[in-house]
């Protein structure tokens, strides 16, 4: 549980935020200048907000001095200690535990004896992440930690964060502009605008809500569904079952029986009136249209029921007209298995 109530008046900007989120990853989402960093700083106590109530796992921390809050904070800028080697930066907040695995995961083993001044932008950011992780915090705050990193590096760090969330159970407050990252990590999404909370809810719900589409951007819209690993096939595909049947995905390194979360972007779903044959897409599910909502531009967002789950599909207005799409329409959704990105699979939160 994370409970946050913060009020603060900057000159020309007022922050007034109140939300509760269950254990797991809480994503702060919003445009530049929305107030995400300010909320994170107030939670950590480094911004002395006019009013701040913060509870982590039921315990109020707002009365504690900063060092006793035990918050691992990766700031938006790396903030490495310039007079210490990378190694000593990493060690600074360590409370026991080993440095090795985290250093390896972050690929900073060769940099340990360097001074921060001799690091690249992304290297510095990775060291900052390592330093926060090693402090064994009670709450982890990550302010755009992966912004300066390439995809390959992100792909190494994200699973680690998932493990923190699932195995270690550390609550995480995560600031990011990347819907893919949020979809993968977040249990709860807090959408902010101009210092206020616009929408709070479970990630699947918030991201499957056509009303939220304008906030997160049409191109990033998509639904989250929960699946169970059913089998690993010899050709490298993994079969997943969900309420609407079976999904085939590129190999998922989770044991059979594991429950996962899978994100299907609206633009990766194609609708067909009849089941298509002889195509390279492996996943075809029967669906019923529930709602249609015109987006900006010529696109239409269609909310679909597939089994017990909800999907979002984005089609052109022309197609919608041609196929006579309307609430109640029945047909098939074609999902290219490979279009379900690895980056969008996460363990169920």
């Amino acid at each position, binding site marked *: 549980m994370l409970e946050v109530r913060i009020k603060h008046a900057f000159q020309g900007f007022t922050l007034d935020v109140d939300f509760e989120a269950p254990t797991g990853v809480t994503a702060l989402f919003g445009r530049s200048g929305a107030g995400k960093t300010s909320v994170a700083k107030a939670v950590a106590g480094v911004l002395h907000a006019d009013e701040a109530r913060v509870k982590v796992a039921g315990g109020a921390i707002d009365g504690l001095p900063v*060092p006793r*809050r035990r*918050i691992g904070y990766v700031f938006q800028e790396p903030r490495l*200690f*310039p*007079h210490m080697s990378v190694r000593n930066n990493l060690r600074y907040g360590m409370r026991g535990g080993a440095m090795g695995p985290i250093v390896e995961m972050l690929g900073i083993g060769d940099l340990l004896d360097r001074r*921060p001044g001799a690091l690249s932008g992304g290297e510095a950011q990775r060291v900052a992440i390592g330093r*926060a992780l090693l402090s064994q915090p009670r709450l982890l705050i990550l302010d755009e930690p992966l912004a300066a990193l390439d995809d390959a590096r992100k792909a190494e760090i994200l699973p680690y964060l998932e493990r923190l969330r699932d195995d270690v159970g550390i609550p995480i407050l995560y600031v990011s502009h990347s819907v893919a990252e949020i979809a993968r990590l977040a249990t709860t999404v807090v959408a902010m605008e101009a210092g206020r909370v616009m929408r709070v809810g479970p990630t699947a719900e918030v991201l499957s809500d056509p009303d939220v589409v304008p906030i997160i951007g049409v191109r990033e819209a998509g639904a989250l569904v929960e699946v169970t690993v059913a089998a690993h096939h010899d050709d490298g595909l993994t079969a997943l079952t969900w309420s609407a049947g079976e999904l085939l995905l590129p190999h998922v390194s989770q044991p059979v029986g594991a429950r996962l979360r899978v994100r299907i972007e609206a633009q990766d779903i194609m609708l067909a009136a009849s089941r298509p044959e002889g195509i390279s897409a492996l996943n075809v599910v029967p669906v019923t249209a529930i709602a249609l909502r015109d987006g900006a531009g010529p696109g239409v967002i269609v909310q679909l029921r597939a089994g017990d789950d909800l999907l979002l599909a984005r089609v052109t207005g022309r197609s919608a007209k041609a196929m006579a799409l309307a609430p109640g329409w029945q047909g098939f959704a074609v999902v290219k298995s490979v279009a379900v990105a690895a980056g969008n699979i996460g363990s169920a939160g």
Partner: protein
Amino acid sequence: MSGFLGPAEWEAVALSLRVALTATAFSLPLGIVVAYILARKRFFGHGLLNGLVHLPLILPPVVTGYLLLISFGPQAPLGSLLEAMGLGVAFRWTGAALAAAIMAFPLMVRAIRLSLEAVDPKLEETASTLGASRLRVFTTITLPLMAPGILTGTVLAFAKAMGEFGATITFVSNIPGQTRTVPSAIYAFLQVPGGEGAAWRLVVVSVVVAMGALLVSEIMARRVGKRIGRQDA
């Protein structure tokens, strides 16, 4: 070199070194504390403390010496208390060190304060999120990042302590081996016609000593600069 100066002059040089080093060493921790308070705390009496620290710079040295005498002289309450505790400073080399320390204090505090004010509070903030107590933040982050100012303050204080004359002679007089520092000796030589030769020899020695200290400090400063990332490797 021992032929260059007579034994009495060597005594003065040794004493001056002892006085200057003691003055610098003892005033450094206090200088750091006072600089910290002046830089970071807002309180009633801030201006007063600040003024007090600067007083020795503003007053003619003789006046400072006189004020020391009426505070720490053997007859003064504070002085006699110290005397009774075996810590009397009047007419002792420790008094010379006290005078030098007080005269050098504003220079030291100002340098340290300047450096302290240039330390990025975000780094201290970051350290505290990593669980560091105020004390640990200070010793591991603030203090190392203040190093240039501490170094500068130390050098200034040492140089000033080596050169201090007016307050010293007024406060602790001029007792060979106890309080006859190099500047006192130089002054004495300059008072008599024909004493210039001996005076210049002492001047040379004190310049050499101080230049050595300066040089060492420059080298250290460059290292420190690199350590705290002000210069690229």
